């Protein structure tokens, strides 16, 4: 069940440049802009290629795979909807496709997090046209 949107400080506020990114996540897809000229991936959503500054960008699906570069464990409840989930872990993940794209997202696996941990994009729908990007471990938790 979705939380009351009025206290969802964590729901992004898209604009017309970024809306396709959030809408795709709402549909379970992780899409990034990719330059039709030079093949460079761009994140966050931008009107221009970060590689060659060309204008011809298409929304494409990367593998969604990457590895953890760094992480923080938030104990302080910075917003009402976050108060219910503290402590929670945010991972900064380096994408396999391009090593200069690092995307923060909630880490939602029981696996102990570490630098280099292999992870996979895990979209989560939070409103009609808005999804968020979580990260889950590509490996299973160790047997207990």
């Amino acid at each position, binding site marked *: 069940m979705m939380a009351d949107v009025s206290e969802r400080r*964590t*729901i*992004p506020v898209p604009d017309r440049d970024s809306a396709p990114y959030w809408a795709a996540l709402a549909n379970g897809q992780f899409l990034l802009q990719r330059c039709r000229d030079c093949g460079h991936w*761009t994140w966050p959503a931008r009107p221009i290629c970060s590689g060659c500054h060309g204008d011809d960008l298409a929304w494409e699906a990367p593998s969604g795979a990457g590895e953890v570069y760094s992480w*923080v464990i*938030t104990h302080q409840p*910075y917003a009402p909807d976050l108060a219910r989930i503290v402590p929670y872990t945010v991972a900064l993940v380096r994408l396999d496709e391009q090593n200069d794209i690092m995307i923060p997202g909630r880490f939602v696996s029981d696996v102990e997090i570490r630098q280099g941990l292999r992870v996979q994009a895990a979209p989560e729908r939070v409103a009609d046209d808005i999804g968020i990007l979580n990260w889950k471990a590509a490996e299973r938790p160790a047997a207990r």
Partner: protein
Amino acid sequence: MTDTSRFPRSQVAIVGIGCTEFSRDSGVGVFTLATKAAKAAVADAGLRLGDVDGLCTFGVNDSIAPNILAQALGIKSLSFYVDQFYGGSVSLSMIGQATLALSAGVADCVVCYRALNGRSGVRVNGSGGGAGRLPWDMQFKVSAGYIAPSQEIAMAARAHMLKYGTTNEDFGRIAILSRAHALDNERAMMRTPMTMDDYLASRWIVDPFRKFDCCLETDGAVAIVLVRADRAHDLPHRPVLVQGAAWGGGVTVVNNGHTDLTESPARPIADRLYAAAGLGASDIELAELYDCFTYNVLSQIEGYGFAEPGAVPAMLASGAFDRATGSLPLNTHGGLLSEGYIHGLNHVYEAVEQIRGDAGIRQVARHDVALVTGQLGYVSGYSSAAVLVGA
């Protein structure tokens, strides 16, 4: 050093400083705080409110704008103003931009100020009602539950721990140093001693940061008065020259194009700053470094050229930054961590007192050349810094 900078070196001086009490609840509005600090600074400069023709401020929709303050101060027509969005990352760009305006002659007397009810009003950590306007890139942070600067800086701090073996105790030494320096500062909000046990016992805020890795939230205001240097010598205090300033780019955590968060965002600022000042890191006698979190200090010691990456912990342990005996007295007032959080303008205030030789029991022995900095680029992508020199 090749002298290629066109910064108007030493052409402008800080001639007045003013502040309010730093507290958890000012009991007044930010309009009152700004007015009190501005009046105090202009009086300190030996000038009259009627001399002021420029106002510069910054904030996150949590303060009072120059056009409103000007009317209260009786300034009928501002010659120059800056009303910059963002917090401490732009604190020294205020000083830099005022310097450009004064040296160009478009203004004759500029007051830079920051006023906020940072504890009782709008809190930067996002829990106190919000600032109304969010930067465009915040959508890519809030969606991860990543909404406070503490989280962004902690992410870089963790990366530094993983790469260089930096420890929580190393961060703790920065918190303890700041507290020690605040003990005899009558302006400081935190004046009880802190031990490593105290530090390690403080609760997690954003692991790897504990409570004492995080700066205070403060109600208060600071104002700084600048005029051209040729006019400064007739005024009551030792002029404090803006030897150089630099502001601008840094990398943020949601800005692709970089691969190593441990590379200090201060590095590109430092190169331009020292070129503007015609000085280098070895010339700096004291440093007031923006310390909203402990790790920022470590990263800036590296980025502004005082240590190789990874070398700061040993310097901390050896007392290199102690006010009385260190080779580089650092955050001599207790900083944002223990004095108060006026988004970096209180660092300027302290540097001016030190350079004047008016810091009393806190006075450092060598006090002619100070580095003062704003927030690292991680949060906004901006950073700022100035080198101040006694005339």
